[in-house]
């Protein structure tokens, strides 16, 4: 039996009266990309910052590379790399300077020219940090997080706020790291990010892990149901749509009706009949296989981005 490289047991953390973590537990194996998926405020960043040693937990046990992040000091910092959610570098530091400086802090470090090349920053090596685009800053952050060849890499919302093109670039980089069998703990609120990149996922909501497993296993929860998203010319009561054939549940948000059906053809036929009878029309219809979003919806009654 392998010993997990990250082990979290019954982690709790409060900020004043707000309980951010209420007994979070999970473990990550070496070489695995593990995702913490949840909406904003779910407790993902608190968890990852405790694992990085940036915050002390109120309770619970944490072990990263067999070390306690709170008490192991520099020995622990030598083993980890991190892309923090809210951080920056001085405006007037050059890309190459930043990388070289951080490399010098570690006993084991990579050659910085190789990192610049790998992250497409060669041409920007003499540029000031303030001159970089959002995507370039994030690539630099990733390069800096790898400068010490860390055993564990923490990526806290690595694509938050980036445009889709840049997000895809970052996905490609993370996938490369995944192929290199780098252990990564990733937090995200993007479903596609978790599904595409993670070997296993813990879905976090209101400071608790509410589901835990591979994306495929988690989606099995919603197995046998398909998601139907529809827009109507005129609004209809949710209860009426919930009564259609094969419909497991139905919710309306901003004019969008989200239904889960166990028998899609029958649901569509009865929907069309119902709308005809009401003198209403379909404005849009989309049928999709279940995703982690559906799992979250099933478990919490809310959408991830609510």
């Amino acid at each position, binding site marked *: 039996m392998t010993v997990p490289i990250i082990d979290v047991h019954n982690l709790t953390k409060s900020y004043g009266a707000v309980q951010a973590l209420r007994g979070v537990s999970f473990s990550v194996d070496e070489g695995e990309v593990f995702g913490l998926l949840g909406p904003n405020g779910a407790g993902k960043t608190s968890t990852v910052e405790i694992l990085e040693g940036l915050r002390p937990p109120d309770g619970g046990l944490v072990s990263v590379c067999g070390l306690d992040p709170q008490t192991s000091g520099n020995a622990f*910092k030598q083993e980890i790399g991190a892309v*923090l959610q809210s*951080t920056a570098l*001085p405006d*007037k530091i050059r890309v190459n300077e930043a990388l070289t400086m951080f490399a*010098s*802090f570690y006993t084991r470090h990579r050659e910085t020219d190789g990192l610049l090349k790998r992250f497409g920053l060669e041409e920007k090596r003499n540029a000031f940090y303030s001159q970089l685009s959002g995507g370039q800053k994030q690539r630099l952050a990733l390069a800096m997080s790898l400068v010490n060849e860390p055993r564990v890499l923490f990526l806290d919302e690595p694509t938050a706020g980036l445009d889709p093109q840049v997000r895809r670039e970052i996905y490609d980089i993370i996938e490369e790291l995944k192929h290199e069998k780098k252990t990564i703990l990733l937090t995200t609120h993007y479903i596609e990010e978790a599904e595409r990149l993670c070997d296993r996922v813990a879905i976090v909501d209101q400071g608790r892990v509410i589901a835990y497993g591979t994306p495929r296993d988690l989606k099995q929860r919603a197995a046998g149901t398909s998601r139907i998203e529809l827009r109507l010319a005129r609004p209809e009561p949710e209860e009426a749509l919930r009564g259609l054939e094969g419909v497991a549940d139905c919710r309306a948000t901003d004019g969008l009706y989200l239904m889960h059906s166990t028998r899609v053809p029958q649901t569509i036929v009865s929907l069309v009949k119902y709308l005809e009878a009401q003198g209403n029309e379909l404005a849009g219809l989309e049928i999709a296989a279940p995703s982690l979003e559906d799992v979250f919806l099933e478990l919490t009654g809310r959408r991830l981005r609510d």
Partner: protein
Amino acid sequence: MRHSWTLTKVRMRLALRNRAFLFFSLVFPLVFLFLFLGLFTRGNVSAVPYMLASVLALTIMGSFWGLSMQLVTFREQGILRRFRIAPVGAGAMLASSIASNYLLTLPTVFIEFTLARHLFHMREWGNLWGVFILVTLGIITFASLGLIVASVTNTAQETQVINQLLWSAFLFLSGATLPLPMLPGWIQSFALFMPATYLVVGLERVLIAHVGAYAIRAELLSLAVCAAIAFAVSQQLFRWEPESKVPRSAKLWAASAIIPFVLLGIWETSYGHVRSTATTDFMSTVQQAAPRTRGRLRMMPESDAPPSTAPPDADSSDAPK
């Protein structure tokens, strides 16, 4: 130690790329130099060392300003937390603040000295060893006070306010701009409790009376103790995270940095020589300058002093009785 040196080099480069830094650390002190030595000495070579002491003191005291602002801005922008993830301790970060500040201030001091000697014809260099030790300890002490300011403030705005208050006190109550003997008695008494006063008076002594480091050992010791306490306290109070606020006890800790000057001030009030030596140095400057400035300058301690070198618009009614 190695990390401190790496950080020092990077921070020096960052400072040299910052126009505001260049203005306040090089242009601004030189403006003071030309103002004090060019305007106030009016060609009286004997007054140059006295005015140079003031200019050097202002340059050294300015250390705390930029340093505290930079540290607080780094914290506010989340830059410090990126360093926190790496194996870099608070001590290395703080030591690099002081070291970079020292290495960046030294050239300005050197330029001021050279200009005073060659452009304003200062007759002698003074006790250079004494000057060097005092300048070194002075920069370290005032930079450490900057670290304290950064420890007890949460935002750049707060830092600006505290810096403004401290700078005004250093500027006007220490003898750096208005000679100590010209200030009202109660201000002179208050000045005995300020680090700035000992820096100014110490510089006057090494430049005018050419005394060595031993003669100003009390001043040097207080600066050194103040720097050591300020560094230890700021290390204790160091905060990496923008959202971590100042603990209630922090201000008391911070206040402990001035303990050496409180003790020195109490001792000076009863037995000390600072006020008398400041007056002696001032009077000797005034007397040497008198023949050339007769009838032109009015500011001086009233007693038996002849007309002196001083800002022409100063009011003699402030003179101590």
